[in-house]
């Protein structure tokens, strides 16, 4: 990939939309439609330009209705057992779609491992 010239602006847009959705929900917990619109826009942008997002960002967005998931406000999170294993189940309250994460003590995401880092930066 070339240097993030074109993509940087798109990343900034994504970043701004993501934070704006958080602020909207912080200010007005009832107005989830706006947060959902922002996140939907963000998803469309990332889809069109094929931008990669960190799993920590993707886990806070619902895949069905693309609303921002805030545990306690927009989604519920429970520990469940299924087939002898423990999963964390996150359920979006608007579209009732659930995501499952396995509670494996030995599992580390590839993005979090030090060998994958090429010096992640914080840019303006």
């Amino acid at each position, binding site marked *: 990939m070339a240097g*993030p010239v074109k993509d940087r602006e798109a990343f900034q847009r994504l970043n701004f939309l993501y934070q704006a959705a958080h602020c909207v929900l*912080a200010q007005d917990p009832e107005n989830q439609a706006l947060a959902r619109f922002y996140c939907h826009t963000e998803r469309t942008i990332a889809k069109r330009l094929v931008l990669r997002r960190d799993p920590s960002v993707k886990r806070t967005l619902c895949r069905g209705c693309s609303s921002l998931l805030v545990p306690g406000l927009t989604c519920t999170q*429970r*520990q469940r057992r299924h087939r002898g294993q423990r999963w964390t189940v996150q359920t979006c309250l608007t579209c009732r779609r659930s995501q499952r994460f396995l509670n494996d003590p030995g599992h580390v995401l590839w993005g979090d491992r030090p060998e994958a880092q090429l010096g*992640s930066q914080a840019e303006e």
Partner: protein
Amino acid sequence: MAAAPQAPGRGSVRKTRPLIVKTSLNNPYTICWSPLEREDMHFILQTLEDRFKSIGLQKIEDKKKKKKTPFSKKESRAKGITDVDVSEDMKEKKGDAGQQVSGWTPVHVRKQLAIGVNEVTRALERSELLLVLVCKSVKPAVITSHLIQLSLSRTVPACQVPRLSERIAPVMGLKCILALGFRKDTTDFVDEVRAIIPRVPSLSVPWLQDRTEDVMENLENESLESQDKEVLDTSSEDLSKHKRKLTEGQQASTIILQPLKIKKLVPNPNKIRKPPKSKKTTSK
């Protein structure tokens, strides 16, 4: 960015690709617990332990669970009451130190606590808790403790070093405790809660906490401004009003926009991929 690629002239040597670096949008918010000092931690653990021992809050499980052992091994924390009741019906008399009653010893004390992650979550969603204590030695830590911190808009949680689970679980007779909460109607633990709350460091989330503080400041500024309005003249009042609104607007909206964080990743060399279909053979 790209490592030195092979010379493209030689068509046969095409196996080594240039090193691709993927950039991904990283989360601008780093949600983490606030660190707890050692003295506070020791104090909290000590008070809790003494209190539980003095009350005698114990969970007694029946040790003989022949048919239930494959499930009971993999059960999560504070369960077993229903299983215990069932097994109690099935096998009536045992010699477990003469204690036939299984379950929790003082039941009314048990109702004042919320033990276990799911129960604490539910109580937080209904805003029933005064204090929440969380064990820190969770292996996939982000997954388990993530939600408790995001429900911080309601109560005052804390973060503990692993010893919460190691110390208090055997006192209660459980295998491990990851989350503990005191309900609002607790009578036995009021002193402990009052002693622990000032020791607990406050949590902060960049997008939520600033907003509540700014709302308070905004209200105060607005009340001051309304008083000053009547004093000033009309023309200067308009100017000052606009000026004040601008400054207030700036103050209120100092929700600091986090800078863009980009993560650069090297793709996993051990990634399991499907073998690519060669489309050259099948032609339409």
